[in-house]
């Protein structure tokens, strides 16, 4: 349900926009209220708390004739609106020495637009008691799987986002919810301690639990298998990436490099490659809040731009990047609905949303059969972008060895993929028909500014340096 609090402050924010618009040529206010809860059941305890995404407040963004300025605040009332107006005007004043050297900017377009977008939870809503019962059942199943599992964990996380965006001519509101059910097994024997996790995620309580419950056996068995994992012999191998690692490549290796605030800062090598080949002709890549349905699917971004489906790579050719509103203004392009903030307290940057490679025509089995000696790589651990120099660091939780087209039973962990991005993308030789989006990720810009993202796609066959 849309935040009653935001409804109660909408007209005050409209009034504030009107007042400031007498001085400034462009003024917007984003109001954001994210509520929710997280519930965790482990072998040894149970906890209930707030969602990580919780926030409630406002950010006013305006063009002062030279630069864009912003002021974030936690509350507005009829009694405090005068003070907030004064703070916006006074606390954002910069010394002349700074203003004399600014990026040439202009007011944003403010085409009239009104809209309310609501995406309610699908299906039955579970009570706290029901959620706890289901989590406990998952935890118990994990615990009972094998005596070597010393710790089982099941968690539920729900966040409901309400937001409005108002300017002189625009008035948008949205409300949507996302639910994640995650599980983890920690296994221990004389070889050490290893863990594995997975999750289900959707805007339905029932679906998220069903997805998570279906993964219990895989999570437990993988944790046990990892007790015998070896370190990989470093080298260049044929690889098959599962959809999680496919998504990691789409996101870290390439996606960050097409965030167009990086173009503005001259930080992206991909700018030189627009309309040029950057990958095998088998590769098609998308990003967008509207590109698929997952955790980063919203109706408008934090700049008040409607969600897009951006085709980034088609037939191996780089088509375009993604952008927030201020970057698009500087580049003279249209924003793509990718202006996102960690919270109302932080700046909007160009950020990915749902990023993926499109499916192809091979089957997973054909791909495995085609490998002479290599690894199938599973489950994202972490990754780091290098948009200027296109070096790769993608860490996979584990890999399974393939020899002569068959799994040997050997498991290696962790596996670090490294190399040069175009080499990796160019080496993609098979793309599977499958399509899986991993809808529970968080992504930073550099080392901060965390937002929810999803990524994924099909299985890919490629060649890469592993260590």
């Amino acid at each position, binding site marked *: 349900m849309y935040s009653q*609090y935001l409804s109660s*402050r909408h007209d005050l924010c409209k009034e504030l926009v009107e007042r400031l618009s007498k001085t400034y040529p462009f003024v917007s206010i984003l109001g954001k209220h994210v509520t929710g809860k997280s519930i965790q059941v482990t*072998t*040894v*305890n*149970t*906890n*209930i708390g*707030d969602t990580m995404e919780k926030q*409630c407040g406002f950010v006013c963004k305006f063009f002062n004739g030279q*630069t*864009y*300025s*912003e*002021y*974030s*605040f*936690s*509350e507005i*009332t009829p009694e405090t609106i005068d003070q907030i107006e004064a703070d916006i005007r006074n*606390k954002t004043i*910069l*010394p002349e020495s*700074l*203003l004399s*050297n*600014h*990026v040439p*900017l202009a007011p944003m377009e403010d085409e009239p637009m009104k809209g309310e977008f609501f995406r309610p939870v699908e299906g039955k809503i579970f009570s*706290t008691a029901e959620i706890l019962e289901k989590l406990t059942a998952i935890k118990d199943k994990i615990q009972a799987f094998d005596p070597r599992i*010393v710790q089982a964990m099941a968690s539920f996380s729900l966040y409901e986002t309400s937001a409005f965006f108002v300017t002189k001519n625009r008035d948008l509101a949205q409300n949507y919810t996302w639910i994640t059910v995650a599980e983890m097994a*920690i296994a*221990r024997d004389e070889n*050490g*301690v*290893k*863990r594995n996790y997975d999750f289900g995620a959707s805007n339905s309580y029932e679906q998220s639990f069903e997805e998570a419950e279906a993964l219990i056996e895989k999570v437990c068995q993988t944790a046990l298998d990892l007790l015998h*994992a070896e*370190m990989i012999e*470093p080298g260049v191998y044929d690889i098959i990436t599962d959809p999680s690692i496919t998504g990691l490549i789409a996101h870290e290796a390439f996606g960050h490099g097409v965030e167009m605030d990086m173009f503005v*800062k*001259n*930080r992206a090598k991909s700018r030189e490659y627009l309309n040029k080949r950057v990958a095998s002709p088998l590769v098609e890549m998308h990003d967008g809040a509207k590109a698929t349905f997952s955790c980063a699917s919203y109706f408008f971004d934090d700049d008040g731009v409607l969600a897009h489906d951006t085709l980034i790579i088609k037939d191996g050719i780089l088509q375009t990047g993604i952008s927030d509103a*201020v970057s698009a203004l500087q580049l003279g392009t249209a924003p793509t609905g990718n202006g996102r903030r960690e919270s109302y*307290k932080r*700046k909007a940057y160009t950020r990915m949303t749902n990023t993926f490679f499109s499916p192809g025509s091979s089957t997973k089995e054909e791909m495995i059969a085609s490998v002479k000696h290599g690894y199938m790589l599973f489950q994202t651990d972490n990754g*780091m972008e*290098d948009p*200027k*120099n296109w*070096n*790769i*660091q993608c860490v996979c939780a584990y890999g399974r060895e393939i020899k002569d087209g068959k799994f040997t039973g050997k498991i290696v*962990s*962790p596996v*670090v993929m*490294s190399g040069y991005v175009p080499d990796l993308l160019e080496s993609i030789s098979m793309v599977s028909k499958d399509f899986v989006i991993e809808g529970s990720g968080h992504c930073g810009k550099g*080392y901060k500014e965390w937002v929810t993202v999803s990524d994924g796609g099909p299985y890919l066959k490629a060649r890469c*340096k592993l*260590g």
Partner: protein
Amino acid sequence: MEQLLNALKKAKNIAAWKVNATKTESCELFYVQKKVETNRATSTVDYSVTIYVDVDGKRGQSSFTVYPYMGEEEIASLIEENVFNAQFTLNAYFDLPHPSDNAVHNVESNLAEAPFNEIIGKIGEAIMKANDVENASLSATEIFLYKDNVRVINSSGVDASSNTYSCKIETIPNYVKGKEEFELYKAISFATFNPAELTEKVAEVISLVRDRANAEQMKPLDSIPVILEDEEAAEFFGAFYYDLDYRAAYMHSNLFSIGDNLQPNREGDALNVKLLPFVRGALASSYVDSDGVSLKEVTLIKDGIVTSRHGSFRFGYYLGEKEPTGMVPILSVAPGKSSFGDFKKGPYLRCVRFSGIQADLYSGFLGGEVRLGYYFDGEKEIPVTGFSIQANFNQARQTFRSSKEEVILDRYSGPKYVYIPGVKVL
């Protein structure tokens, strides 16, 4: 805050409560190359509340956030909802910390000496002063100035707070060499602004990116001593911090216990690791943790032997600790006897910028992709790039040597350099 405290005091069926209040004022400046693009200011406040209920000797808890718009009635209703939730989370009983240091800690800083939008201009000038090197520039710079007031209050009488100032900077130096361009990332943070020192730090990063531009492709090697430094040195030692947390022991996910020898086959330096609440220049310093525990020095590892654990009051209580340490923020590692110069007497690979190092006790993996290193083959040192390193972390902890030169980072105080023999280069 008064409304919240009133509501908590009036609430029925709660055994205890805790409030963490955070008020932040910030001033932020965003440059695109040498030009200002955006500036921001913030004034925000959040109250995080935890309520505890006791049933049949067990304790349940539930946490929620209170926002400034909420009146006493709405807060009371939230408390009631969370009392209900807490009854589903009945865990082993644990106490809350009692007051031992209810002081207000004001950390001295010259960032408090003038209005933020004045100081931020001077910080910007100090950074841009270094931005005057042929073929080099800063692609982007972000400056964040913060004034934070953090307060923790609980129903046992804890009421401690701190006022701190800090500046965090992200800057991306770029170097042009022919048709190619190269960049590196650098984060700088401080509580005391020294313009000359800041200019020097930025100039140092610019010189590093120039070296990346001139770097050669590193060749694969089966074995070479690697020198880690600064953040990567902190990551190397930080791996032990997580394993020795009370929570890991309570969850049975720890590898090591008190009395264990982490270096039974030691060939290098002995591990001596402490946790400290306050180190001047380490921004994470704090005299009180978020539960209200007054923090003291803790010796975690002495001469390679685990001497104690650390962690939150709750999990310490569960493990029967008489005086749980609380979350002591600064990892302090004893320096070694060797100098940086000693490490450079034979062939070495000094890795100065990683994508992100992995130092994992559980898999035994130590390594990552390196964006800039310096390789010395015994004759000359050259900048190198485009490679990864891989070592066995469990072996490395037996053989590492740490420098007598020290560095202070946000959460680390200790050797600036760590020397690890026998590392593979990919």
